């Protein structure tokens, strides 16, 4: 994975902050413009493709709305790193092909640090500080789905294989 800049947030970043209810009936384009605005007003306009969003404990707590990770993916965020994720959010992120990496040392990352994240190996190279942080590797069966681009393309492959086998 290429390196990206770190955007650093605190504990319990919730789905209402990531995908505000007020914009939920809009398409992802409009919704993503308001992603994280109540805690970091310039985020959506300044984040660049390949950037990494870093949280502390329980990132993504709250609702099942997958527009929360979808908004981050739409804005080009390449990976999420946190000390822990809400279980439901974690599943949603992986299902959308957005790697969510559990890193006990996420608190060592500073805003703007350049990070290279390797979810499968379970390591983050902080190119700014020269530090290497150990993470929990994403299990192989989930990384396969992430590499396919998420559950939908993954199922597409599976269904296609079934259809070919039936032919």
């Amino acid at each position, binding site marked *: 994975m290429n390196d990206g800049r770190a955007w650093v947030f605190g504990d*319990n970043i*919730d789905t*209402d*902050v990531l995908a*505000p*209810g*007020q914009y*939920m*009936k*809009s398409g992802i384009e409009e919704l993503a413009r308001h992603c994280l605005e*109540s*805690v970091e007003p310039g985020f959506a306009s300044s984040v660049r493709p390949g950037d990494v969003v870093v949280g502390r*404990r*329980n990132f993504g*707590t*709250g*609702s*099942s*709305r*997958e527009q929360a990770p979808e908004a981050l993916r739409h804005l080009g965020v390449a990976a999420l790193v946190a000390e*822990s994720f*809400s*279980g*439901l959010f*974690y*599943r*949603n992120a992986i*299902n*959308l092909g957005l790697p969510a990496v559990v890193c006990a040392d996420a608190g060592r990352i500073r805003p703007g640090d350049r990070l290279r994240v390797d979810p499968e190996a379970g390591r983050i190279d902080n190119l700014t500080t020269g530090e290497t942080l150990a993470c929990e590797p994403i*299990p192989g*069966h989930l990384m396969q789905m992430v590499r396919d681009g*998420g*559950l*939908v393309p993954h*199922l*597409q492959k599976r*269904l296609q294989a079934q259809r070919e086998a039936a032919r």
Partner: protein
Amino acid sequence: MHAQTLAQKIIARAAGRESVSPGEIVVCRVDLAMMHDSGGPRRVKPMLDKLGAKVWDPDKVVVITDHYLPAKDDESRRIIRIARDWVKEAGVTRFHDGEGICHVVLPQKGYLRPGMLAVGGDSHSPTGGAFGAYMFGIGATEMLGVLVTGEIWLKVPQTFLVEWSGRLADYVSAKDMMLALCARLGLDGGQYQAIQYVGDAVAALPIQERMTLCNMAPEVGAQVGLVAPDAVTQAYLESVGAGGSDLAAWQGDADAPVGAHLRFDAAALEPQVAAPHSPANAAPVAAHAGTRIDTAYIGACTGAKIDDLRMAARVLRGRRVAQSVRFVVAPASAHDQAIAAREGTLKILTDAGAELLANSCGICAGYGEDRLGENQVAITSTARNFKGRMGAASSQVYLGSPFTVAASAIAGRICDPREFLK
């Protein structure tokens, strides 16, 4: 076969196994999949179309509209229309349109049974745990996976026993138990494991209060909340035409290892209030008593079922809310509202000054036009008070039981409901 918790027994059955152990990843057959209008058809239909796939078993799917109702603008009407059209196209007959909030309507239709493995496209889906079902919330893409395959993977959880012994004092409720648990565990203390509520105070709770316990399990980060089915469960299930389950099969083994065992004294529990912007900011009501409020809201799956409306009515009977307070009540289902109307509960609330809103998620989800305005201070019987969730980012939401919300509405400030004990 080793001793197993209730959660393990349900998962083992759904995975086609004799037994399972915490930490194992298993693939389960899904007995029931529930969706609402927001995360349901409007999200899964385009993906199903893209895959050219059909629903694995339409009889196991339930669709309930509750988020974009009342549909007061074109976009909301479009979203509701997608749900109505899709159920026909997919052959889903268990469709309930405008009858109330999904987590409350689902058991009222007799769809839930002990031992089921069920998923819902909403984070409060663990409400089904009150009936001894292993039910958890998933996102729309994961729901698509279920609709196509009829399966879902999960990591077998540890069980955290939450034991409430003794007896709750009057004007103290399941909501107070959960706010106290949020304060103790924080928003992530549940670690995506299974919480099972036990103890005599839990056994003494009516079914809807048990629903409140399970409904808020996600507030402490658990995957599910469970109450083992008993005579209370059975009586309820029979009343909705869903009786006949073998209750003995759906009890955890007494010697099954658990991840934690937390003990609470129900008799010592006081009414709780959680300050903005987290349910974990809960403390006995005295900590916030006197805080002036603009809005008091009895609503949502967490706090507007018939038992919740009755709690509010007990405090409000023969009283009126403060003139400065907007008191809004959105009964959680049409069924519960009809009971409230029949028995006079609803009249007590409206006589006290309640403004009735539709049987939908409304303000709690931050979707409707009644959202909280700038700098509004509210006390609500709902589950979540995250910043900006129910309206303006500057609004301040306190969480309390229906008793506490009603008492605060009368006083115009946050107030201990025991001041109104008769």
